[in-house]
């Protein structure tokens, strides 16, 4: 990152008024100075140049940005002044991108989408070259391509970090020893299967004394399948020598297998290479056609796309326009599966986690989280197919798929027809049958005509899909805090500090109280500092119970009635509940967009207001950037992000247009070759 350029530019530009050191001296040193170092923190000895103590300056920035400082008893800083300081420190420390996926918002939104805040040379410096380990699904796609099928006994070697949201970042993964053991075993399995279907490999393996020519042909075939290129003479020589070594101690069949397994373990096979070809005078290098074929394949699908590989071999991925043409072609072709597109929405919204939230089986209705997820998948795909105003539609549509699956109707000549996915459960003897799954959506009966338009003023968009509500709930309750954090991070681009060590975040066990009341414990001063960013954004979703069902009152335990609910002998007969008034009010505060801030009466008001917000749309695009580029955005990506936003808006909210813009940006296509000073 050309930090030096930024600092020099800052010094020359008029942006000196928010200069950090005078600010710190005026506002911070009186409590964090030589006489009184509150919390053990001294700020009087900060160097004027943030780059010389970037960790400390960034800590100052984060405290100010998140409103943790100044403390409540001191006068509040105006939002604008706070923002200026945050920007200044970000720029002056060189704006190193945060490493972890959920830290991407640390880069202030205004610096990316505001009027040019960085010099043009910085704003368009491509990222450094990198390698990117295959994701778990990418690995499975590779195996399918190699073995031309799905071999039995393949163990998934790769994992992703245990985190919420977008997880496959290039900078986070490599291969360690236990993973290598799995890769070795898998390589054996894959080669065994390949010998059945790949002629060149089989010939070499079956020959009693294969000739160097036969072995070379096999090596080249394996290279083509695994790495999509031809091996150099030197590479072939080394593989042949491996064969010879193994042959000495054993059979030729074993030696050939080992030689072929080795290709599958090469870094080129397991890591995506993004280094670029020949660099121009300023050190910019476009990814080679071979690299692009793999990169584009893995970005949209989990396997190499034959049409892209072919295009590369014909030199047709050598310019931005050519890339645009191919990306558009892939997006428009319904016959080509693009699981990574749905994958983005699953990771962004997180609704697929509904299956991981354990709930006791309800007696009076059906809870089938896998089907809820499938329904939301269907809704997302439907909106993507229409491809109009995608962001707003996803947040505010009143349509939904309900207990929906497509099944083959063999009688009608094997066409796919909608069917009720989860059958209503049968009733026990003398018992009322539990309500069917469609009741969760508020429907009395299932209908084949889908998507359904839901009842007015009940449920809108993904955030009120049962899958999303369940995914962001706990075993027994709603989770307004985490829902609020989701909105703060993924729609408002905000930051929420991590739960401090030693704090046990538990709501009191008061089943006779509405959840909103139980959550009052977060209003304590030390908690509210962070909870004010979350709670009020999540509480509107109290409109629904923790199974995602719409309600107008809240059911709580009635301890008095329960106590009285005994038989003649005094044996308790069970718990009695009562309904209490439901409060769905919340508020958007300190979002960074004045038009957004303000109280909200219910979740529908909230999502409609957010859907109209330019900032929220741009935060959505930042997340799309992270997913498709496998890293957090930096200041150098500002122009790419702005261009992607413009393309999205200009196309009337087409997600395809957004994807094309991202995949033809400098951030995707180019790498820097000269060593960057940072």
């Amino acid at each position, binding site marked *: 990152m050309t930090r030096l350029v930024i600092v020099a530019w800052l010094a020359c530009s008029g942006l000196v008024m928010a200069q950090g050191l005078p600010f710190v001296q005026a506002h911070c040193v009186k409590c964090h100075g030589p006489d009184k170092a509150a919390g053990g923190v001294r700020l009087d000895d900060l160097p004027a140049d943030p780059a010389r103590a970037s960790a400390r300056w960034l800590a100052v920035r984060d405290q100010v940005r998140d409103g943790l400082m100044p403390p409540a008893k001191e006068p509040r800083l105006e939002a604008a002044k706070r923002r200026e300081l945050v920007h200044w420190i970000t720029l002056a420390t060189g704006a190193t991108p945060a490493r972890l996926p959920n830290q991407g918002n640390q880069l202030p939104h205004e610096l990316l989408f505001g009027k040019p805040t960085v010099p043009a040379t910085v704003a368009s410096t491509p990222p450094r070259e990198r390698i990117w380990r295959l994701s778990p699904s990418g690995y499975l796609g590779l195996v399918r391509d190699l073995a031309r099928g799905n071999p039995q006994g393949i*163990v998934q070697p790769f994992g992703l970090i*245990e985190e919420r949201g977008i997880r496959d970042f290039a900078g986070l993964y*490599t291969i360690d020893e236990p*993973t290598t*053991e799995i890769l070795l075993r898998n390589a054996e399995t894959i080669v065994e299967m390949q010998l059945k279907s790949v002629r060149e490999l089989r010939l070499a393996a079956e020959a009693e004394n294969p000739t160097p020519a036969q072995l070379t042909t096999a090596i080249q075939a394996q290279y083509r399948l695994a790495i999509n290129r031809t091996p150099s003479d030197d590479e072939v020589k080394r593989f042949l020598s491996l064969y010879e*070594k193994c042959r000495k101690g*054993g059979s030729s069949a074993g030696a050939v297998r080992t030689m072929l397994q080795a290709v599958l373990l*090469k870094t080129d096979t397991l890591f995506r290479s993004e280094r670029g070809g020949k660099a121009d005078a300023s050190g910019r290098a476009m990814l080679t056609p071979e690299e692009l074929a793999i990169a584009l394949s893995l970005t949209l699908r989990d396997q190499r796309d034959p049409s892209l590989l072919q295009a590369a071999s014909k030199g047709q991925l050598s310019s931005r326009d050519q890339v645009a043409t191919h990306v558009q072609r892939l997006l428009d072709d319904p016959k080509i599966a693009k699981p990574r597109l749905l994958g983005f929405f699953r990771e962004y919204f997180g609704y697929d986690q509904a299956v991981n939230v354990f709930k006791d089986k309800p007696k009076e209705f059906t809870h089938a989280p896998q089907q809820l997820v499938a329904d939301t998948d269907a809704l997302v795909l439907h909106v993507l197919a229409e491809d109009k105003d995608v962001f707003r539609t996803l947040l505010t549509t009143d349509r939904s798929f309900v207990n929906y699956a497509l099944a083959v109707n063999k009688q009608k000549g094997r066409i796919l027809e909608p069917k009720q996915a989860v059958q209503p459960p049968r009733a026990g003897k003398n018992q009322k049958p539990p309500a069917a799954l469609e009741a969760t959506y508020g429907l009395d009966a299932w209908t084949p005509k889908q998507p359904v338009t839901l009842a007015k003023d009940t449920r809108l968009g993904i955030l009120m899909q049962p899958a999303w509500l369940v995914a962001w709930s706990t075993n027994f309750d709603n989770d307004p805090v985490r829902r609020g954090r989701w909105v703060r991070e993924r729609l408002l681009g905000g930051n929420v500090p991590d739960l401090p060590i030693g704090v046990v975040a538990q709501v009191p066990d008061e089943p006779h109280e509405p959840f909103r009341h139980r959550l009052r414990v977060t209003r304590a001063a030390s908690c509210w500092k962070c909870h004010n960013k979350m709670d009020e954004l999540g509480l509107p979703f109290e409109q629904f119970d923790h199974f995602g069902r719409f309600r107008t009152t809240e059911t709580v335990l009635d301890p008095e009635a329960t106590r009285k609910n005994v038989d003649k002998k005094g044996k308790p007969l069970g718990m009695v509940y009562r309904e209490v008034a439901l409060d769905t009010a919340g508020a958007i505060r300190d979002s960074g967009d004045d038009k957004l801030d303000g109280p909200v009466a219910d979740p529908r008001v909230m999502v409609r207001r957010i859907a109209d917000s330019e900032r929220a749309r741009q935060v959505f695009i930042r997340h799309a950037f992270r997913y498709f580029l496998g890293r957090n955005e930096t200041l150098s990506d500002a122009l790419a992000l702005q261009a992607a936003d413009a393309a999205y808006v200009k196309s009337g909210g087409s997600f395809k247009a957004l994807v094309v813009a991202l995949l033809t940006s400098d951030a995707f296509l180019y790498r820097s070759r000269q060593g960057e000073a940072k």
Partner: protein
Amino acid sequence: MNLETTRRDLLKGLTLGAGATLLTPILTQLAAHAAAAPSAVRKRVIFVVQSNGIKPEHLMPTGIARPRHGRPTNAKTEEASLKDHTLHRALEPLAAFKDRLTLLHGLSGRIALSDHSGNHGALGAYPANKGPMGQTIDLALSEALPGVVPHIGLGLAERPDMTMNYQISASARGKTVPIQCSPELAFKGLFGSVARGSGREAFDRRTNLLDFMAEDVKRARGALAGEERAKLDQYLEAFEALRDRQGRIEAIRDKLVANVPDLSDKFKKPTETNRLQAQFDLTAASLIAGLTNVVTLVSGGGGQHYISFPELGIPVGGHHYGHGGGVEGKTAEDCFITVRQYHARLIAGLAKKLQAVKEGDGTMLDNTLIVYLSDSGDGHHPTGYEWPMLLLGDLGGTLKTRGRFLQLPAYGQKDHRTTANLYATLLHAAGKPRDTFGVADPGLRDLDQSGVVNELLA
């Protein structure tokens, strides 16, 4: 001592050739001994981690009662000899080993408190939900008690196709160590070189492949810089470490052949009990063959991973009876006891096998410590104020664990100790003394949380 650096330094000077395979294990042992205790007696530690919590009552000797409400509040250590008591029926299968075990109560683990499992915090003594924040005690001990294979992690997951559990052990900050939940894959990895069939040839081909790959990754690495290069550093080290291990396995080939377990029946019918039994069998065989000195056995464990045991008459997962639900006429408590008895039976079986092997003046069991605990402290929804444990064996006389019930001072008392103190104690006993471990409990701010559990250290 950073094990990885030492290994690489050793490998730098070695070349292929018959001599290398013989030289490496000796060099490694020397290096290990130089860093570890001067004692030449082999020591080994086994952690048996069972999901769903251990209710303190199950580890109480008969005749000694816990307070009717709440938890013990003793300011001083209370203890009793197990000579005059029997074990709770949940531990009945361990009766024969009563005089070798300690029922350890009173350690807290509030730092690792979570709504369910403490995850890496159970063996790491740090927060439960921030991923692997540091090295867990099993991996720390594997550095103190190095073996051909530094550490073996074996486990039981809910389904046979779930092969790895990443939520219990860690070798360093951010580096989780997977627990292998497929007994078949574990067997292949540990005994593959001597398994019936063309094991020998395959073993040699593997050695050649590892050499080749190390060279290949080195070349690829040379073209990169900075963080990108560091990614391949790790991949390179993986091949180098595996290659190094080939030599060391070669050196103990005879012992492997003599101890290779026959698990074919259990592989054919992969019920929960067969899978877990197979893992215990592999543990015993690996220890006896000298493959390793530290094993972590995990039943369920991490997150909300609970096992159902239809073979024991408990077809529901631990979450069900963890919430008080019964099944098929059994109460929740019945379920807990049945499952705990089963695990006690497995531990007793393991101890018996170690006892049957002579070592020095005694048996292997004399130089072993088995630590039985849950990753979820004292219950399905743990309190963290107590983390009951059972210690079997005295690690070559370095621990005082023979036939004791120990109730250490309660949470908040002046002399209170935590799981971190126990782990420090184990490291003392293993010859790599440390006085702090994991992250201190902020709820015990006024207490000096460093140091050992003096009652246990010999």
